[in-house]
């Protein structure tokens, strides 16, 4: 029985090695070597300059802001879906997932035509003789793009936790004197934390590393770390430096994940957190 199960796991192990472990080792190797071979920390040292630090800081800041907005907007959406009748629920989830089936680039271009100088919004404003706005090519547009593209990754895990939640727990809390707000604060939200943490991770990771959104909606006027990596690989052909930046980015994502998962299981140390 046991050995059978082990054999069944082999294809997965092979898959893991080929597609995850090997590339990771390659990236690590590149990051630690000169272009023409020989080990070095030079690539990392190069990153430790104020210019690159600023890029990293800006990336983390924008990803953080987007994640917070995704949470603030996504949580109520997840709640609305989870509270709908079962018949309506599937339709609502489908509506959420449907845009994700469309090409990522296409969706982002769509925002450009909406926000552009001669875009839909400014046309409407112009029609009412209102001053046109600079909506594109700024931080706001990038954050908007990130929220739009990544919010399903926040809504779906929270929704699935909320939908599975035992409704009698909410009734029990009300029975003991908790009004709607207290119920949310003391029962619903703490119990949905696993979903929230999955959501945060799944939004924060692509938001830190995206290069398409800042390029299109930010107009490439300022760089995010994803653009930097892309640039090193596709224009500068400095794979070694590009790999080093990737590794640094990965470390920051891991740190962010470690911080969030630290709060994952309040059941263990009850009363401490909530």
């Amino acid at each position, binding site marked *: 029985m046991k050995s059978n199960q082990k054999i069944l796991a082999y294809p997965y192990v092979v898959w893991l090695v080929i597609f995850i472990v090997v590339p990771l080792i390659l990236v690590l190797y590149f990051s630690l070597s000169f272009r023409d071979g020989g080990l070095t920390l030079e690539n990392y040292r190069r990153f430790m300059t104020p210019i690159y630090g600023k890029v990293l800081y800006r990336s983390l800041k924008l990803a953080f802001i987007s994640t917070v907005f995704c949470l603030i907007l996504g949580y109520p959406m997840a709640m609305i879906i989870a509270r709908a009748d079962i018949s309506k629920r599937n339709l609502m989830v489908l509506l959420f997932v449907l845009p994700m089936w469309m090409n990522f680039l296409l969706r982002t271009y769509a925002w450009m035509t909406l926000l552009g100088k001669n875009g839909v919004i400014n046309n409407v404003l112009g029609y009412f003789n209102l001053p046109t706005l600079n909506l594109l090519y700024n931080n706001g547009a990038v954050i908007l793009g990130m929220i739009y593209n990544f919010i399903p990754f926040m809504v779906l895990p929270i929704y699935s936790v909320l939908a599975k939640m035992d409704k009698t727990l909410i*009734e029990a809390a009300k029975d003991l004197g908790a009004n709607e707000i207290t119920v949310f604060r003391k029962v619903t939200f703490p119990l949905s934390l696993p979903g929230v943490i999955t959501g945060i991770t799944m939004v924060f990771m692509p938001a830190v590393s995206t290069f398409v959104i800042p390029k299109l909606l930010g107009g490439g006027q300022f760089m995010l770390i994803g653009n930097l990596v892309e640039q090193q690989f596709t224009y500068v052909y400095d794979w070694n430096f590009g790999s080093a930046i990737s590794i640094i980015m990965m470390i920051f994502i891991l740190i962010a994940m470690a911080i969030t998962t630290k709060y994952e299981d309040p059941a263990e140390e*009850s009363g401490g957190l909530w």
Partner: protein
Amino acid sequence: MSQNIIDLKNITKIFDDETLVLDNINLYIRKNEFLTLLGPSGCGKTTTLRIIGGFEYPTEGDVFFEGKRINDLPPYKRQINTVFQKYALFPHMNIFENIAFGLRIKKMPEKEIKIKVEEMLQLVGLQNFAKRSVESLSGGQQQRVAIARALVNEPEVLLLDEPLGALDLKLRKGMQIELKKIQQEVGITFVYVTHDQEEALTMSDTIAVMNEGKIQQIGTPEDIYNEPKTAFIADFIGESNIVKGIMIRDYLVEFANRTFECVDKDFGENTEVEVVVRPEDIEITSAETGMLKGEVITSTFKGVHYEMIVKENGRHWMIHSTDMAPVGSYIGMNIGPDLIHIMEKGA
């Protein structure tokens, strides 16, 4: 009017516009009364409790609390607490925090909370469990935490939905006595739901027997036993043999003109009691060796067992057994000490 703490007036509940679950329920619950809703599964007991607790809105009819209509009052504003059928303990809090939940909402000082919660833990026999997580407890222990969590708030009315269902017999007996004691000492009105007629009989002041969304009879346990109003009640309640007896001293009871060992105590000496023996708890033996002797007057095959009526000194005993004794034969009947149930007379 105002000595009733809860009045249900013409309550009807229809789910999804088609399922009639409660059909014109009228029920008056007096202050400090121990009222039991007794009835088969699916008859609407939980739904009735949920309407009193505010978790369901009656399709028709009104709910009154101390004379005031409370149909539109949300659960958290009602001075009512519930012990839920499925415990509904908060999995993200330890046992202490679960019990303290209601007190925390009332903003009781931390010191007082600690004292009260520990009192409650003591009461339900879980002194050393304060720091334990919910999932590390057995079903019976969780059930006792659920009772403690509701009781600690000292509500005017406590709703209990089969609160002892997960406990073994011994623990259940103990908790029955404990709950009854609390109810009398603290003076809380109990609305208690159970399947178990024996539990209903030993604990209640009043029993409301329900069937198919209707209340069939409301009365004291004796009323319900001795004068069942409907065939349904006679059938539902009458499954036990009930005879008068005298508790001679602890663990010794006299009935049917002889003494029996039993497991009950604390009734005093030479006290009149009612003795309940379930039909399936009577063992058939030969006429010579039986504790009681009698003649089999009917014998019916019921699928899994035989149902026999045995006449003994003018008393009729119902026996359920997989062994069949033919009609007209004389048999002996043995009853084990733990199968003899003693009830206070007029409980």
